[in-house]
C-alpha cells in the first residue's frame, strides 16, 4: 500500500506558513452564503412540490386511524386554507416535531433520527474503503497506462461501473447470502442484525458487521469503480505536464516524481468526486438498502414512496437536500485548502 501513503505524506517544509488573506476569507463567505441561499430555495420548493402531488392526503393520513368525522373535517379545513397561509405555517418551522408520518403514525423527525445511523454506517464504510482502494487502483493503472495492471484494472472497473447496483446487490445476495454454485450462503440475506441480538454488546457489533458485509461490498464495488476511473484519467492527464519532465531532468526518481508532483495534483478531481458522493451518504442507496432490507434512510424513502407518505417524503427530501448542499460546500471549502489557485 505504499502508493497510498504518498497521498497523505508531504515534504516537511520550513518555508510554508498558511496564508489566509482577505480574499480567501471573501471566497469562503461567498461560498457559505451561496449554500444557504440554495437551501432556502430548496425549502420553499419542497413545500410546493408536495402541494402539486395528486391524491387525497387526508385520506392517506387518516387511513386505518381511529378518527371521527369532525377530526377529519378539521384536517380538511387546514388543507383548504389559502396556499400562502399553509406556506407560512410550514416555513415557520419545517422541522416541527409534531409532523406525523401517515404510514408509521410517528413523528417523521424521530423516524429520520433513527434511520440515519444505519445509512451513515453503511455508506460511510463503503465510501471510505472505496476511496482508499479506488485511488490506489487509479494511481497504479494511470501511471503506466496500457500496462498489464491497467488493462486488468480498467477492464474490471469499467464492468463494475456499468452494473446497476441493485442487480449487483441481488447477485451477491444470491451467491453469498442464499448460496449458489456450491458456495454456502454464509452471509445474512437482510437486516442490520439478527432479531433478538443486543447490538450494544461486542457480540452485537460483530453481528452488525456480519450483516454489513454484503450491502457494503455492493456499494464499495460500484463507488470504487467510479473513483478508480476518475483517478486514472486525471493521472494520465497529469503525466503530460511539463513540470514532471523538468523534475526528471533535475534528477528526481520516477517514484518521487509520481509522489511529489503527479499524484497530489491528480487527486484534486477525485477528492471533489468523493466529497460529492458524501452527500449521498445520507441520501442512502435506496436500491441497495431495499435489496438488503437495511433499515436506513434509503429503505425509509422506499417505504414512504409506496404510501405515498407525504409528510415523511417531504422531510426526507429536506434531509437529502441539506446533505447534498452540505457535501458540495465541504468539497468547495476543501478545494480552497488544497489548491492555491482557488484562493482568490
Amino acid at each position: 500500500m505504499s502508493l497510498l501513503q504518498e497521498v497523505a505524506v508531504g515534504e516537511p517544509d520550513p518555508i510554508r506558513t498558511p496564508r489566509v488573506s482577505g480574499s480567501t476569507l471573501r471566497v469562503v463567505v461567498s461560498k457559505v452564503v451561496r449554500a444557504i441561499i440554495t437551501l432556502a430555495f430548496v425549502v420553499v420548493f419542497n413545500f410546493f412540490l408536495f402541494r402539486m402531488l395528486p391524491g387525497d392526503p387526508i385520506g392517506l393520513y387518516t387511513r386505518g386511524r381511529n378518527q371521527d368525522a369532525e377530526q377529519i373535517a378539521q384536517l380538511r379545513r387546514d388543507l383548504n386554507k389559502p396556499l400562502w397561509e399553509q406556506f407560512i405555517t410550514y416555513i415557520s418551522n419545517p422541522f416541527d416535531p409534531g409532523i406525523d408520518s401517515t404510514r408509521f403514525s410517528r413523528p417523521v423527525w424521530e423516524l429520520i433520527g433513527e434511520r440515519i445511523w444505519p445509512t451513515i454506517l453503511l455508506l460511510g464504510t463503503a465510501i471510505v474503503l472505496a476511496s482508499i482502494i479506488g485511488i490506489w487502483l487509479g494511481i497504479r493503472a494511470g501511471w503506466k497506462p496500457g500496462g498489464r495492471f491497467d488493462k486488468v484494472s480498467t477492464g474490471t472497473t469499467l464492468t463494475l461501473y456499468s452494473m446497476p447496483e441493485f442487480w449487483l446487490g441481488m447477485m451477491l445476495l444470491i451467491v453469498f447470502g442464499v448460496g449458489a454454485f456450491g458456495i454456502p450462503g454464509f452471509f445474512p440475506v437482510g437486516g442490520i442484525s439478527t432479531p433478538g441480538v443486543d447490538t450494544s454488546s461486542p457480540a452485537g457489533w460483530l453481528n452488525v458487521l456480519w450483516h454489513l458485509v454484503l450491502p457494503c461490498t455492493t456499494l464499495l464495488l460500484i463507488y470504487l469503480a467510479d473513483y478508480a476511473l476518475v483517478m486514472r484519467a486525471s493521472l494520465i492527464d497529469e503525466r503530460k505536464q511539463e513540470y514532471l519532465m523538468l523534475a526528471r531532468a533535475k534528477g528526481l526518481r520516477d517514484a518521487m516524481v509520481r509522489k511529489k508532483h503527479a499524484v497530489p495534483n491528480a487527486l484534486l478531481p477525485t477528492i471533489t468526486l468523493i466529497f460529492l458522493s458524501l452527500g449521498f451518504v445520507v441520501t442512502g442507496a435506496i436500491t441497495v438498502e431495499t435489496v438488503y432490507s437495511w433499515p436506513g434512510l434509503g429503505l425509509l424513502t422506499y417505504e414512504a414512496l409506496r404510501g405515498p407518505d407525504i409528510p415523511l417524503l417531504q422531510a426526507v427530501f429536506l434531509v437529502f437536500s441539506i446533505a447534498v448542499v452540505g457535501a458540495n460546500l465541504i468539497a468547495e471549502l476543501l478545494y480552497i485548502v488544497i489548491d492555491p489557485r482557488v484562493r482568490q
Partner: protein
Amino acid sequence: MTVGQPVADGQPVASGQPMIGARDLAVVFGGRVRAVDGVDLEVDAGEIVALVGESGCGKTTLARTLLGLEKPTAGTVLFEGKPLDYRRLKDFRRQVQLVLQDPLGALNPRHTVYDAVAEGLRIHKVPGDEQAQVSEALSQAGLRPPERFFLRYPHELSGGQRQRVVIAGALALKPRVLIADEPVSSLDASVRGEILGLLLRLRDELGLTVLVVTHDLGLAWNIADRVAVMYLGRIVEVGPTADVLQSPQHPYTQALLSVVPDIARTEQIVLTGEPPDPARIPTGCRFHPRCPVVLAECTSVVLPILGIEPGHRAACVRVT
C-alpha cells in the same frame, strides 16, 4: 544587449573546451520515425549556440536527448568530452539544466516559488543553507528582493517572472550547461528581451554554456555565438551567427531568412511541396523535394553528416 547587432560580433566568447555535444546521434521512435537522424554537434564551454529549425524538425528531441531524457537509438551524447553513462546520471543532472517554453506548465501549480527553486537542492541534497541558496538563485535570475517571492504561487506571477523562477530553479544547482527549449516564445514581446538579456548576463557572469532551441532566427541573431540549422533530423548548416545569418549557404536557411521581416533583403522564398515527415525521409539530399534550386543529382547524392570542425559549413551539393 542591443537588438539588431550580433552580440558576440561573430567572435565566439567560448573557450574552445567542449562542454556538451553529440556524435552521429540518432533517435528513432517506433522503428520508423527518425526524429534525429545523424547529428554531430559541439557546444563549447561559455558558448551560446542556437539550434534553429521549424517545428517537427527534431530540435526538441535533440535537446531532450542531450539532456539524457531520451536515449539515443545510435550514436553518443558527450558531456565534457566523455560519453554519457545512463546508469550514473545524477551528477550530469545537476550540471545540465533545462528551461522550457511554457513556464506555467513547467511549474507545479501547487508549489510555491520557494519549493520550485529548492527542488533541485533537495533532490541532490546540496549541503548548506537552503534558504540562502534559494535567495541567491532568485536574485541571479532577477527576482529581487527574493524573499518577496518565496510564498508566491506560479499563477500569481507574470509570464516573465515565471520564466525567471524556472531559470532560478536551474541556477540553484550551479549548473554548467543550460538547455533552453524555446525559452521566450510563450512570453510577451516586451519580456522576451529581458529574458534573453538575462541568459546573456548569466553566460558572462557565471560562464554558463547555453544551447537555445528556437524557431526564431531573430532570437538566434540576438544572443547566439553560433547557429545550427536543423532540417528533418539533421543539421544542414552550422557556423558563427553572423556568417550563417548574413550569408546563408543552404537553400533551406536562405528560405527561412527570406521570410523574417526584419532581415529580409531578398525576395521571399516560399517553400512548396510536402511538409517534411520524419517517418519518410527522402533519398539523397533530404531537402530536395522542397528545394527551390534543386539539381538533378540532389535526389541521389548522399551528403555526409556535417562534422564539428569550426567554421561555416552547409550540407548542400551547391556548396561543396
